[in-house]
């Protein structure tokens, strides 16, 4: 129980520490303009990472999410053009979600029915989607409907996007569901031990398929926010697959499945975006950001292991004491 709080505490502390450091360097960091752009820039990664967390919970990976996000942006430049209006906007948006569902089912079939390892299966999907994006748009071209993107990025008091509030609430509710409900427990059980779950009569196949579909749908929603950011049908954006896995793991997910936190993932994704955001204030080149991300992931993983290591050490001390006690 205690262990599951650690990622939340650590991520919050890091976000505040980095923010305070940046603020000390430049008052521009806490300006409305910068906060607004930071929060909006974090949206694609937060959403895709929360989807990634679902895949990790059932013990899988999905590296195709980045290519799917890019494909959705490219697709939006066809289905959500500046001249699209009325009902066509709805069908145009549903096309993106539909691609997400289809990709999720495709991945799920490769993984659960054909029994390919998820990392290999989704790598194939990634390649297919990348090719499809380049086939539709060989270079950035085709503006995306600003009515849609403006609606998605609407803010209150000039800096706080409504979508960000929604994401925070959804993450909190999702964690409540994951750790305080029977179906949440069942999802974790499938991730921890698929065979035992199946023996207990749980619909393990359905759970795993659904998890990958949710992951892909989240990626296509993230695609909307990526589209809002780039505004044009670009086939060469979105390389957030590894970052989304990093965010989920920093947020408390286990690569072995069955563990994770949506709120933690949200915080970690925000933190990773914050790193990118503050670097210009220090005039540091971005390679430092890459190194920092890598080092932080390792540091966090070591810290997450620490309670277990300490507990193991303590329990062995205690029981040795207990055995010794009668002799004295």
């Amino acid at each position, binding site marked *: 129980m205690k262990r599951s709080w650690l990622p939340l505490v650590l991520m919050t502390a890091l976000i505040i520490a980095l923010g305070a450091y940046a603020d000390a360097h430049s008052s521009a960091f806490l300006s409305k303009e910068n906060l607004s752009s930071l929060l909006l820039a974090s949206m694609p990664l937060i959403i895709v990472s929360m989807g990634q967390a679902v895949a990790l919970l059932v013990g899988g990976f999905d590296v195709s999410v980045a290519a799917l996000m890019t494909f959705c942006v490219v697709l939006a430049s066809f289905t959500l053009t500046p001249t699209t209006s009325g009902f066509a906007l709805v069908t145009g948006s549903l096309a993106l979600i539909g691609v997400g569902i289809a990709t999720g089912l495709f991945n799920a079939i490769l993984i659960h029915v054909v029994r390919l390892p998820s990392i290999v299966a989704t790598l194939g999907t990634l390649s297919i989607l990348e090719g499809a994006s380049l086939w539709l748009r060989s270079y950035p071209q085709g503006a995306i409907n600003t009515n849609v993107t403006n609606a998605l990025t609407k803010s209150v008091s000039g800096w706080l996007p409504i979508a960000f509030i929604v994401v925070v609430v959804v993450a909190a509710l999702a964690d409540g569901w994951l750790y*305080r*409900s*029977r179906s949440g*427990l*069942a999802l*974790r*059980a499938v991730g*921890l*031990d698929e*065979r*035992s*779950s*199946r*023996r*207990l*009569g*749980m*619909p393990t196949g359905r759970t795993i398929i659904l998890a990958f579909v949710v992951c892909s749908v989240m990626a296509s929603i993230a695609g909307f926010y990526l589209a809002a950011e780039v505004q044009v049908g670009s086939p060469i954006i979105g390389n957030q697959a590894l970052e989304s896995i990093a965010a989920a793991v920093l947020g408390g997910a286990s690569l072995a499945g*069955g563990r994770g936190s949506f709120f933690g993932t949200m915080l970690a994704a925000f933190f990773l975006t914050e790193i990118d955001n503050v670097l210009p204030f220090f005039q540091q080149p971005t390679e430092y950001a890459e190194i920092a991300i890598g080092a932080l992931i390792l540091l966090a993983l070591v810290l997450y292991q620490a309670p277990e290591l300490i507990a193991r050490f303590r*329990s*062995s001390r205690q*029981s*040795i004491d207990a*055995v010794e*006690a*009668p002799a004295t």
Partner: protein
Amino acid sequence: MSNPGPVTPDVLSVRGLSKAFGAVQALRDVSIDCRAGEIHALVGENGSGKSTLLGIASGVLAADDGTVEIGGSRLPHHSPAAARRLGLGIAYQDYSHVLELSVAENLYLAAPADARPAYGHMQTWAEETLAAFKLDIAVRALTASLPLAERQMLEVAKALLTRPKVLLLDEPTTALGPEAVERLHTLVLEQVREGVGIVYVSHRLPEVLAVANRVTVLRDGVWQGTFEAASVTEDELVVLMIGRPLTVAFPERHEASDHAEVVLTVTGLQGERFGPVDLVVRKGEILGIAGAEGNGQVPFLRALAGAEPAIGSASCDGAKLDTRSPAGPLRAGVVLLSGDRRGEALFPVLSVRANATIQVLRRLQRFGVVLHGRERRAIGGLVERLRVRMASEEQPVQSLSGGNQQKVSLIRPFLRGDVKVILAEEPTQGVDVGARFDIYEALRAKADEGIAAVVKSSDPLELAGLCDRVVVMSRGRIVEEIPRDELGERRIVEAIVGSRTRGTATAGEEEGAGA
């Protein structure tokens, strides 16, 4: 269709089941039934098809041919969920626990929708549920932290949560000591009185005969007959199981010499769940370790082999053992046969040949290339002697039955020339009656060559027959040593029971002193 027939209806009825795994015919046209309120024992050697039969009845495996009826309704397709809905509960031999979740969470997941309380009431509900089954298990504990005996009882409790009409028990006593077997049987008999039918699979004949109403024997996937338990003797069943009469025999012990050279010395060894332990084992001696389950026998052996952290010291042939990792003891010639064969001792996807020879490849190579011919010659005799049932030596170990996997793991130490001490954890667990003697004989032959063996077993008869000397462990310590001329099944059981009562008394005194 009218049915004027039996007063007690069949709660499980399988008809004409056949199932093949590749070239091996695991079941051939087998039919059995189980009535409400009876215990129907299913016995047979390893690989006789018992587990396959349970797998099909519980919906995990699809049959090639035949039907399964549960509570009068036919199982439409193979699905554990469907079998559960029709009223079938099963306690798997290797359990259905999610080890990283708590006991309460595991119970909660196992409960059907109508028996499940609100999520927030899980803890109290789990406590009440376990109390109703008279089980004293901490509900907040991680399932992984439970000793095997408690995991087994939890498995049975989980199966009963669905209020099954028929309960399948697959080798439920493998991990249990005599006292825990008693508790399990009490629990099972209570269910029987309430009209549940039990299919009880076991290789421990005396145990299963003590509670069964009827017995069915399988051999090589073929039905050998169903009998009233009262009208059949153990010997008759054994004949049917192995196809020839067999007396429980042990290899002859040679004149003990208390003056033989000491090969293994343990001084003050202690770890998380045992110790301090002092012990000497002489060349040519087989030392038995007895005790109720979970009293430190296994951690002690594992620590000695470097597989578990410990303090204190041990030496082999005068040289100090480096027990910080398994490499030290191995170099010194101390070999552990882990009881967790699938988890620790074997590489499931590798072939029988590769598994048997993996530690001695250096000897079987020429110019750095391993010669398969040499490998096959090396293991051929042992495969035959231990009667490993397989289609070929190139078969992956995971495709063998549990008992045969066990035999493969036993081949390994016998291939090594440099072994001085064999530490064996339940060497015959899950091994069929016929092959047990082969294992005993192989161990004794090694002892006669001058190596020492330490055998941990939960079967007192086995210890009495095989060993030169037996020590009894309780609460992590050696509490009694039984010399050779006093060895007997009864003497060992008495020592185990006696040691337990003494242990409790000590605990009581401590509390008194503390208060």
